[in-house]
Structure formats: C-alpha cells, structure tokens
C-alpha cells in the first residue's frame, strides 16, 4: 500500500535525521548550573548567568523561580546547584541550615508604600505596628486623609513579608488581610486602591504610582540602608550544598566580582553587600563593618 510506504519512508528519514543530528552535535561538553528559588533574585542571576556563559564556553546557567521555600528545599535535597532565597536558611522551617553554604549576593531594601491619596509623609515603627495589627484603622489617626486603611500583605512565608515584619514591625505579625504573592501586583493594587498600604522592595518603588513615606523620619534610599540608618532590609542569599564544582565556584566568584556588584546589582535596584557599612546576622543583630 502506498500509505505504508510513505510512512515507513518518513520514519526512516526521521531516524536518519536524528542520528545525523546526534553525531554532528556540538562536541563541547556542557556543564549545567541550576539555580532555583526567590523570584526577586531571579533576574539578577539570570543576567549574570548570560554574561558568564559568554566568557565560559560550555557553561550553561539555568535560572528558575519557584519561591524561596522551593529553592532551599531543592538545594538541600541536592536537586539543584544553587538555591536562591530572600531569607536566612535558618529562618525557614524544615531546612537544615548548617549543611548549606551561604553566599550573600545582594542587599534588598524594603519600603512601605501607600496609595497617593493617603497623604502621610512619615510613619514611625509604632505607627506601622498599629496599622498592621489593626489598632489604627483610619489614616486620620496618623495625620492623613479621612480614609479607611486597607492592608495589602505579601503571602505568608514570602521573604519580603518576613523582612518587613521583622524589621519594620519590630517582630510583630501582621493581622490577616489581603494577600498578594507578587511585588508587581501588590504595587498596582496599592496604586489603585484608596487607603491601601503595602510594602515592596526598593526596585519596585515608583513615585508616579505610590507614595513612599519616611520610616522614623528616614527616607527609604540605598544610601540610608548602607549607612545603617534605614532598618528594613535583608540579604539576598544563594545557598549551595557541600563541595562545589569548579565551574560553580567560578560562577559564585563572578557574582561577587565588581562586574556584577558594581553594574548589575544597582541596575536591578539592589544594593551591593560591598557597599554596606553595617552587617547583620541571623538573629537580626546589626554590627558595623570594620
């Protein structure tokens, strides 16, 4: 039958093409580096990976989001080479932090954001605590417009929320309220909802859309984070496990190099750990850098 002939021919041609392709494939051995985790860190590692690949033939950096929890769990289980996280591994339940190696690749500042109609220029830590625990429910009570307060939280377990609660709310848990799982959505909700308050990383701050109040009289700027006067910030971590391959070590060194830290990090709205005049440990103790 004609059809049978045709199909066999196609099958044979396909097999030949595949074998040919396999035989003529790039001889270059590729080494994959996999990074999974925090979506906040994803663009930076991705961009760094692209330029790293250009300089290191055969290396292939594969970066995926999935959330800090996923990243830490996967690097712990050995499924990926790097776990990207917004928090210290010690802070995440179910992670045995002592088995992981921490690489602090960036510092991220987090600022409260308000809907522009609120009209509040400054908030003290106490006021933030009262707002987020619903002791204060109207902006009038902190000198703003007569407008009910709408809380927009980040998801329970997200690094941004953990950092904000720890350093912005002095360790208080926020009351239940709306939750959004991404910075972009949180910002657009705040910008369009009268009376809304949320918090996002500095890279999402946009004066046209939202109002950024001072915290305890300190402006949310990179400079103030560096000198330690602005309290709400956290490290962005890359965790690795056990012995690192030479290519992985090279990539980690590259992430710490000036090329990344001076150019890429500021471009993405992060702060380089190199510029920090203070440092912090897991328990939140801040000490000056020598």
């Amino acid at each position: 039958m004609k059809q049978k002939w045709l199909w066999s021919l196609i099958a044979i041609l396909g097999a030949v093409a595949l074998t040919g392709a396999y035989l003529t494939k790039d001889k270059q051995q590729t080494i994959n580096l996999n990074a999974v985790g925090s979506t906040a860190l994803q663009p930076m590692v991705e961009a760094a990976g692209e330029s790293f690949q250009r300089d290191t033939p055969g290396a292939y950096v594969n970066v995926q989001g999935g959330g800090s929890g996923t990243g830490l769990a996967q690097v712990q289980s050995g499924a990926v080479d790097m776990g990207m996280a917004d928090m210290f591994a010690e802070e995440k339940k179910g992670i045995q932090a002592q088995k992981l190696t921490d690489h602090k690749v960036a510092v991220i500042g987090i600022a409260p954001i308000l809907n522009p109609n609120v009209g509040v220029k400054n908030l003290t830590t106490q006021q933030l605590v009262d707002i987020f625990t619903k002791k204060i429910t109207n902006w009038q009570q902190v000198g703003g417009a007569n407008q009910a307060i709408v809380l927009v939280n980040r998801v329970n377990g997200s690094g941004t929320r953990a950092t904000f609660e720890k350093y912005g709310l002095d360790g208080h848990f926020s009351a239940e309220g709306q939750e959004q799982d991404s910075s972009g959505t949180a910002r657009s909700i705040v910008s369009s909802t009268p009376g809304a308050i949320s918090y996002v990383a500095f890279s999402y701050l946009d004066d046209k859309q939202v109002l950024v109040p001072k915290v305890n009289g300190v402006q949310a700027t990179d400079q103030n984070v560096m000198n330690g006067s602005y309290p709400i910030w956290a490290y962005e971590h890359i965790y690795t496990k056990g012995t690192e391959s030479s290519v992985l070590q090279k990539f980690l060194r590259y992430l710490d190099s000036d090329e990344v830290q001076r150019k890429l990090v500021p471009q993405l709205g992060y702060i380089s750990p190199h510029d920090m005049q203070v440092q912090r440990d897991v328990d939140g103790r801040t000490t000056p850098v020598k």
Partner: protein
Amino acid sequence: MDEIQEALTKTSKATKKDRFGRSVSLLALILILAVVISIFWFVASKGLATFFKNHVSLWSFLTGTKWAPGQVDAHGKPLVGAAPMIVGSFLVTFLSALIATPFAVGTAVFMTEISPKRGAKILQPVTELLVGIPSVVYGFVGLTVVVPAMRHLFGGSGFGVLAGSMVLFVMILPTVTSMTVDTLRAVPKRYREAALALGATRWQMIYKVILRAATPGILTAIVFGMARAFGEALAVQMVVGNAALMPHNLMSPSATLTSILTQGIGNTVMGSLENNALWSLALILLLMSLVFNLVIRAIGKKGAM
C-alpha cells in the same frame, strides 16, 4: 475440511488486527489511569500527612477560622483552620453559577430557538476563543476593570467575593452556554413541532416543552461550570483579595482554596507542616471535584429515566 471451513476455524487477520487495536487502546487507557492514580495518591499522601504526621485534628482543620500555618495557638497547636477558604470557595462558586445561569440559558435558547444561524456564527467562535484565553489574562482584566468597578459601585477596596464571582462568571459562561446549547439541540424536533401544532406560542414551547425536556442537561452544564469555577486559581487569586478571613460580606477580601494553595506553595518547604497543610487544601479540592462529578452523574441518571 474444505478451505472455507479451515478459514472459519483459524484466527483471521481481522481478529488479529482487532486484538492489536484493543490492546493498544487499552494500554492508552491504562496509561491515563496510572497518571490519575499517581496524582491522587500523591495529593492524598501529602494532604493526609497534616492529620497523621502533624497530628492536626480533622475537625479543627475543617472548622478552624484562623489560617497561619507558621504560628501556633495558645495550646501549641498549629493554626490551620481552613474554614474561611472552604466558605470562600463555595461562595464564589455558587455566586458565579447563580449569575451565569440565566445568561447562559438565555443565550443558549437564543442560539438554538430564536436565531440559530446568527447565533452559531457569532457565538460559537467567540466561545471557543474565550476558552483559550489564559486565566492570567482574565485576572489581569479583572484587576484593571472589575475591581475598580466594584469599588465605585459598592465601596470598600473592590477586592472580594463579588469581584471573584464576576471574573468567574465570565470564565464559566462560555462553557455553560455551549453545553446548554448541546442539550437544547438534543431535544427532538418533534417536541417542538408538536407544541407549535397545538397552538403554543414560541415562548410557551420554549418554556413548557424545551426547557423542561432539557432540565437535566442544563443542570449538568451548571454543575460542570461550578466544578470549573471551584478549581480555577490564578484569575480568582488576583481579584479575590486573598485574606484568609471568614467573608462577612460580599465586598470583604476573602480567599479560596486555590488562591491560598497557589500562592503559598512556592514559599514553603516540602515535608513541613506549612506545606502539608496546603496539600490538604488540594485534597479538599480533589474531593469536591469528586462530589461535583457524582452530582453530574446523578443528574444524568435521573434525566435518563
């Protein structure tokens, strides 16, 4: 034995082909079954771990109203009360079905009884197209159009059960409509002719004959739409507000099972209580899906009698 007798007692080529076809297609079915069972097993084992490994009582899980898996209550028990999400899911589901039903049935009647040609020409392709729009885009439109509209109409933040229901209403409308159309088309022509021959007006024919005959099918379509709504995640998540609080009115931000599940899963560590509790939500979704299916089947059986 002559040639024909021999041929009759031998296994013919056709039989061999048939055996081949039967085995291959059975294999495909078994493959799907394996997939289904492994997913069920996976969800069940993770979802049940909350109760067996983490010793959360089923009762407090289903009735508790505080959802904060990372924290513990005064007795040192984890705060995993799923009641707000369960209520939220049911609210948006029923509400969206309630809004969608008259529109879907009306449109379907229009397409089959009043203007079959135009109806099919415009609505059919539009319906199929809408199914292809990703829920992210629905959510995006919900965020930029529905939520502000709700805010202007009813005050509050705009996020809440009602906004979620409105988005779901548009999402399930095409499904419910096209399934209803199928049912109405299946009503035998002689019913229509008989009714009209008896002097009934078109509306009487539609109302008293067609819709009566098609009721089981229409119910199935609605339950099917509800099942869809119950499982929808991304779009609802963007507009419902995601506050794990008992909704006290339709405008207060609330959460659904899917919205909490989707946004929480990446931030928890596999095997931890926080993670298992989320899988318990997935298990509820699975069981609800089973319930919806059984309802559809029950309606189908009743209609067949």
